[in-house]
């Protein structure tokens, strides 16, 4: 296999290009300093900003692998942050580790319930995934506002703060959580049959069922995983800003997550997915955001850049486009590359 035909070649090339661009515009971009036993620097900053997106993206990848989509992740993030902040605020001792863990567990349990709801609508009732998750996307943010009473809840809790802003072994805890979830998901899908089964369901639910695969249960499962991942991301977000803001938390993150998944080479039609690609996609998006800041392009242009990136990547992925426009340049083999 030639190197430039690897399915992550182009995203990786863009990523490296952005990093190189940063060298010229900000002096100490690659310098990582140790301060109070913690690592600081632009690269660490990118990783920290990308952590929630990586989490949401991992869940989204599994959903998209089965041919579905989950629009409700942003709302689920808002709900999990809102509930945990509310519960911690009600604790007698907000600095007690046990109480905080309990609050987190309850919040994640609610997210699990929301995931079960999404999965039920899609796999049992048979509603289109876009529509089924649209319901929770609309109602979820209302639910989060209901929990917080429309206010922005501030919490001062040292143990809770650790999740989003703490450090462990000199590394940000949020990044460690995101990487751990990504690794667990990677092991589960690539070292067990789960990944194969998901791809099979995404390829053809009917054929998978006839082959003896529990397509319904698997479809249900991925929505639950996606919601729990979004819940953890919501905890990281609210912990990092030490408050629960039902409107800002996870706003439009579903679009960024889908973008990260697409950049990573996962087909939106299902049946082929790459978790490593999604992680790269998420890091790429945050690097893009940071680069736009450091290069001095006004923040307003971020969306335009994203639009261009989406258009280019989607057209590049579209077999019809390859055939019509790039026929001579792209051999058919390239489209059949299987995600490793």
């Amino acid at each position, binding site marked *: 296999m030639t190197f430039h035909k690897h399915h992550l070649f182009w995203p990786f090339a863009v990523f490296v290009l952005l990093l190189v661009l940063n060298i010229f515009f900000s002096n100490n971009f690659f310098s990582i300093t140790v301060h109070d036993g913690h690592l600081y620097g632009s690269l660490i900053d990118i990783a920290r900003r990308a952590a929630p997106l990586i989490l949401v993206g991992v869940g989204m990848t599994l959903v998209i692998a089965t041919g579905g989509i989950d629009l409700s992740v942003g709302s689920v993030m808002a709900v999990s942050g809102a509930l945990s902040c509310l519960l911690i605020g009600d604790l007698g001792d907000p600095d007690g580790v046990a109480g905080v863990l309990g609050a987190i567990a309850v919040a994640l349990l609610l997210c699990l319930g929301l995931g079960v709801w999404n999965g039920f609508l899609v796999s049992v009732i048979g509603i289109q995934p876009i*529509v089924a998750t649209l319901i929770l996307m609309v109602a979820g943010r209302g639910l989060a506002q209901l929990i917080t009473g429309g206010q922005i809840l501030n919490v001062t809790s040292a143990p809770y703060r650790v999740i989003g802003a703490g450090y462990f072994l000199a590394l940000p805890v949020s990044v460690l959580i995101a990487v751990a979830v990504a690794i667990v998901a990677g092991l589960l899908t690539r070292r067990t049959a789960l990944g194969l089964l998901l791809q099979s369901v995404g390829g053809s639910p009917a054929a998978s069922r006839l082959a003896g695969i529990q397509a319904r249960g698997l479809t249900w499962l991925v929505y639950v995983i996606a919601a729990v991942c979004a819940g953890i991301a919501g905890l990281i977000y609210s912990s990092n800003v030490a408050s629960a803001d039902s409107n800002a938390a996870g706003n439009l993150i579903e679009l960024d997550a889908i973008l990260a998944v697409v950049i990573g080479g996962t087909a939106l039609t299902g049946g082929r997915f790459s978790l490593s690609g999604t992680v790269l996609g998420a890091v790429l998006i945050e690097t893009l955001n940071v680069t736009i800041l450091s290069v001095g392009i006004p923040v307003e242009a971020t969306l*335009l850049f994203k639009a261009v990136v989406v258009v280019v990547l989607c057209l590049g992925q579209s077999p019809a486009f390859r055939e*019509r426009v790039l026929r001579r340049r792209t051999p058919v083999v390239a489209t059949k590359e299987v995600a490793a």
Partner: protein
Amino acid sequence: MTTDTTAPDQTPSSIIGRPKRQRWQPDRQHVPVIATLTLLAFMYGIGVVNYEGFDDIQVVLNIFVDGAFLLVVAVGMTFVILTGGIDLSVGAVIALTTTLGATLLHAGWPAGVVLPLLLLLGTTLGLAMGAVIHYFEVEPFIATLAGMFLARGLALLINRNSIPIDNGFWVSVAQERIRFDKGVFISSSVVIALLVVLVAAIVLAWTRFGRCVYAIGGNADSALLMGLPVARTRVAVYGISGFCAALGGVLYSFYTLSGYSLHAQGLELDAIAAVVIGGVLLAGGSGYLFGTVLGVLVLGLIQTIITFQGTLSSWWTRIVVGVLLFAFIVLQRVVAGKRSVQR
């Protein structure tokens, strides 16, 4: 009911066997619309019984006044959804039209130039997305998502602040009130919106183009094999949606007399919700424009009831809309029977 005889894709479930004598029962196609109509009447009844002054005609007319732009956008969305697609860019297109319009008017351009320019811009953007969707087989969801980023990004690039509109034509149209007796009035935007609805309903029900829209939503491959102009129609519906979004943006700028790049955030969700509540099948091919109008009215009525109640907070709107969405989607599943819509 506006339509009953021209439904082009009636399911041929009764072909086999002799037609049985049966009691009157509503056509399956009409059930969602009838359900929405019942819901609307029920909600209005609740409002009238519980709140003083709710039975004033102006309350109903205000729903139209406040929802005129949404109505126009939802009409465009109906065309797209009937073909089985989706358009996420409408809210961003509204932001772009209001921002660009306000900027150009501020720079002294005449309204007679700005207005057609805005409509042309929206239509062009829609046509471009339609072309990408049809010819390059990019998913509508992703293509219009890119359109959303593009339009919102352009709007932010033009001006990130809110710009007031003081153009004479704009202000006079915005303040124009068509009065009936006893202080009952509607704004000129309502007239424009109703005109759009009327034209769109005629196009969908009684023209070749309208039938082709339904046919593509029913089954695009069959439509192609039948020799229908699938490419032209599919690109055109996104053009129509873009036009409607731009016109909605113009009405929005009449409504607020300002241009702002953050206007109409999340409006695409409202439009989609209105269309779904109106009984249009999201898989495409089934539904009526009349239902969409009812859907917009339901959304407006929820807002009005929550305003009249006073003690309920605004987030209840989202929750109620979510619950209604759920109810109507399940109803659609029941009506559509076992027909699989999973991708």
